[in-house]
């Protein structure tokens, strides 16, 4: 059911890289789609009031976008059987320029018997990794 030959995979092999532009529009859209209307994700005044450097992207938006690199590789969103991240750094979204998130996926572990591959995702914003231990287990 998949075009991926598990026997040919190597640990550390890059499976893809995608640049996501997160704008204020992206945050409003994610707020509506997810139901997370926390004001720090769209109001500069409130972000400043609570001591943030600016309006932040929802951590769950960063998490949701990052996994698309693994989804695109396998071709099926339903193949992601286990996905976890740690939110280590905020993504500050500039009102005009937005924020550019670059996500790269690499093969972290291969379980040939169960046909499960762990993809380690690196999400970088402004030269800083914003997710820790971002791992997606993909069922081939």
């Amino acid at each position, binding site marked *: *059911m998949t075009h991926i030959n598990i026997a040919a995979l190597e640990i550390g092999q890059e499976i893809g890289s995608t640049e*996501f532009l997160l704008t204020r529009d*992206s945050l409003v*859209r*994610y707020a*509506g*789609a*997810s*139901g*997370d209307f926390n004001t720090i994700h769209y109001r500069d005044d409130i972000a400043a009031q*609570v001591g943030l450097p600016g309006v932040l992207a929802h*951590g*769950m*938006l960063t*998490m*949701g*976008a990052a*996994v*698309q690199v693994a*989804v*695109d590789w396998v*071709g*099926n*969103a*339903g193949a*992601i*059987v*286990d*996905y*976890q*991240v*740690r*939110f280590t750094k905020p993504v500050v979204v500039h009102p005009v320029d937005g924020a550019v998130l670059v996500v790269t996926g690499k093969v972290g572990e291969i379980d040939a018997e169960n046909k499960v591959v762990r993809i380690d995702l690196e999400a970088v914003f402004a030269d800083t990794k914003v997710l820790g*231990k971002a791992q*997606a287990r993909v069922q081939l």
Partner: protein
Amino acid sequence: MVNPNVQGKKYPATDPYLVGREKIREFAHAVKSTNAMNLDVFAAQAAGYTDVIAPPTFAVVIQERSLATVLADPEADIDFLRVVHGDQRFIHARPIVAGDELVSELEVASVKSLGAHSMVTFETKIYDVDKELVCTAISTLVVRGDE
């Protein structure tokens, strides 16, 4: 500080959430998915699903309904304005599919203190109408204390 006595506390199942096809598409666009399984009914059916499937993080919408109950629980004493999302995990028994009716049951897995801060881990089990487990969502919130 979060009340450490809520560790192990279980919250009753939420009312069923009916997963709509357009909701899945809306969420998929929001997380910048271009995967046909999330968007195209025929592609999803060709892959053996009954309808479009949700992106891997969509379960957060269901988890959130349980979490809202905890945040409103005076016994837990969690100040939402001081909450930061620490980590998140979704373990899927199967993908969420349009047409699913899902309920969630949350348990407070642990409450730890870290200096003035508290770390609360929630485990939310999401079931379909046949009471089959669809997804386990594990979420850790960091609640900032007084500095």
